[in-house]
């Protein structure tokens, strides 16, 4: 299993540990009316962006896995409730990834709760982006 998949699993498994939370990875594959849909996006910051985490050789050593958490519900209250569960599962938690030293997961940015205006999608959605940074360890 790749290191990147390990990082994705580290965040997803924290969410899945909350048995009251329906977690979808990359696509909505069920019929739940409130859930968190997670998209991952990985950065590989080099020496310029992460000088304190880059060895003197200049080799890229840092993984910054971003979790785009779409907190979805039938109304704004449900959406916020999902946001709270996601926050409780991820924020400031330090997960374990084999062969890596992880930093606590931090919140990076987010959007307000808003109605998803896409066709055939009358749900409320709020996005929170969390970051899991690790270095070899």
């Amino acid at each position, binding site marked *: 299993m790749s290191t990147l998949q390990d990082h994705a699993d580290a965040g997803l498994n924290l969410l899945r540990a909350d048995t009251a939370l329906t977690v979808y990875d*990359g696509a*909505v594959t069920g019929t739940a009316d409130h859930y968190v*849909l997670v*998209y991952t*996006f990985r*950065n590989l*910051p080099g020496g*310029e*962006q992460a*000088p304190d985490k880059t060895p003197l050789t200049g080799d890229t050593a840092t993984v910054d896995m*971003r979790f*785009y958490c*779409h907190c*979805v519900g039938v109304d704004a209250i449900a959406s916020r409730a999902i946001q709270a569960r996601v926050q409780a599962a991820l924020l400031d938690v330090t997960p374990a990834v084999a062969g890596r030293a992880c930093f606590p997961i931090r919140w*990076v*940015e987010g*959007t307000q709760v808003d109605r*998803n205006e*896409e066709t055939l*999608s009358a*749900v409320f*959605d709020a*996005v929170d*982006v969390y970051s899991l940074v690790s270095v070899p360890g």
Partner: protein
Amino acid sequence: MPKVIFDDHELKAFTRDLERAARIMPAEAAKVVAKAAVNIKKDARRRVSGLKHAPAYPFSITFDDVQRTGTYAKTEVGPDKDKRQGALGNILEYGSVHNHPHPHLAPAAEAEEPRFARAMDALAAKALER
């Protein structure tokens, strides 16, 4: 009666240096901010180019004229909703229930941050050395 003499000519010279730097910095800092905005705009456009359903979106990413006072210089980089496909910014940056994200604005800003910090450091040093 012993006398104590304080030689403050270096302090006064430094004060003059700071006053001179404070006069030139706002205009010079605005140039650095504008350059960073150009870099972020170009990088964000590059990162989000080539999307089949959003061919016009990259061209909606612009930045405002730099506003400045004596203490700050600022601008805003992002999609202009009045331009074609400019309203897609949120969906593309964060994704949606049906579409995965194409992060481009935040990564472009993060990539520029260390270059911007270095440019501001260099500007401050230059302003004090004149």
